[in-house]
């Protein structure tokens, strides 16, 4: 890890002011109190698939390595399961820090390390915007289509259909405009 560069170089170019301060503000949690005990990294169920692990991501942000944090696969692999914050001796809301990083990564237009996961989330949001609820069958079909991966999991899909676990038609709420107005009020376009 490069430690000689100046604060300015380390801070992500697109963000005004300090990168770390910005993520503290967005996440609503001052994770600068993290002292790298690594409990979060040891307990995180996906840390094996991560590049830096949650404690590493926090360290990157503390040191202002914005691009490394925003372009890491770790922020997308994080499931928000809160296992880490349950372990954290400093009661840091690590899942909220990860959310703040994902939101920032989208806004800044950096390279997304796990585009498939982002696409999945977007399909879920599209479904909520359309129906007010999630329609699992449509989410999966659109997601698979976007990934050009039409055939994996077909067996699972058929099993679910035969057990009536996937509804063919979405359940739509009556007052959908109330939900849609929340989407138009939120920043950024979901495509």
């Amino acid at each position, binding site marked *: 890890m490069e430690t000689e560069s100046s604060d300015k170089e380390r801070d992500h170019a697109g963000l005004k002011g300090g990168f770390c301060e910005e993520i503290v503000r967005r996440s609503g*949690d001052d994770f600068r109190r993290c002292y790298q005990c690594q409990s979060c990294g040891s307990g995180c169920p996906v840390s094996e698939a991560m590049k830096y692990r949650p404690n590493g991501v926090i360290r990157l942000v503390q040191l202002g390595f914005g691009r490394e944090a925003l372009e890491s696969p770790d922020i997308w692999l994080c499931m928000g*399961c809160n296992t880490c914050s349950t372990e954290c001796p400093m009661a840091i809301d690590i899942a909220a820090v990860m959310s703040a990083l994902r939101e920032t990564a989208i806004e800044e237009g950096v390279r997304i390390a796990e585009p498939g996961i982002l696409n999945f989330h977007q399909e879920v949001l599209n479904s909520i915007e359309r129906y007010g609820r999630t329609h699992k069958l449509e989410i999966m079909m659109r997601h698979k289509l976007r990934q050009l991966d039409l055939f994996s999991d077909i067996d699972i899909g058929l099993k679910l259909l035969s057990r009536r676990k996937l509804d063919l038609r979405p359940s739509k709420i009556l007052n959908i405009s109330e939900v849609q107005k929340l989407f138009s009020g939120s920043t950024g376009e979901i495509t």
Partner: protein
Amino acid sequence: MNKAAAVQISYFPGCSLATTAKENNQSLIEVCKYMGYRLAELKDWNCCGSSSAHGIKPELGFNLACRNLSLAPEGIPLLVACPSCILHLKQAQSRLKRDEAATKDYERCWGRPVDLNLKILHFFELMDGIDCLPNTTLNGLKFAPYYGCMLARPPELRHEKNYHGLMEKLLSCYGASSIRWSYSSRCCGTFLSAAKPEVAGPMVNRIVQNAVDSGAECIVTACAMCHLNIEIRCTLKRVVPIFHFSELLSIAFKTGTNKDWFARHLIDPAPLLKSKGLTV
């Protein structure tokens, strides 16, 4: 057990229980009814935002949760079936309590005052206080109590009551026996099961393998997502059925109705139930 006058409770099933996990939904409603609670589904509820809204657009997630809170009739406790929905709803309420500007926006948006004292209940909270009259209905069924990440909470909710051990306590009271194992609180992979199966698959296999190695005849969960993920992603040769907590409670309580929901499981529980003499 309270079988006197029915107590009215509002009910938020959430998207999973309304669709993929109908067996969870039916058994939960049945158990509640048996215990003397009348559930009234929250009118026109919407998705709580799920991991996706809270994961990439937290503000939208907050607002989606708020709309649901605004639909809850005042003074009537709200039962939330999904462990992930309940966190989102409780976190939204907790923010409304401390953030005056957010409360003002809420009231402007939904045209009604916030009920900051609305009781948001998990199914465990309903079960916690019941008088258990020990019996042997569950015939020594050996189960691995699986909580996944449902009892892990963000720091702002960390002072709330913890329900670890509740499934062991109750099901043991009705004659089942819990095994000790290592993966009781290991997350099931949530949305990675759909978005990144190559990561979620091994996670699920490790959970089931450990349950089998520890001598469990079945896994018991209280989360519809855990249930589904284990059933669809486990590729082990030797698997054990997975039950929803309320499914076993409905057997334990002898609620007496036709439990046709067992046919909806992907890992068929019928042979195990039969071998244990648990006719349903």
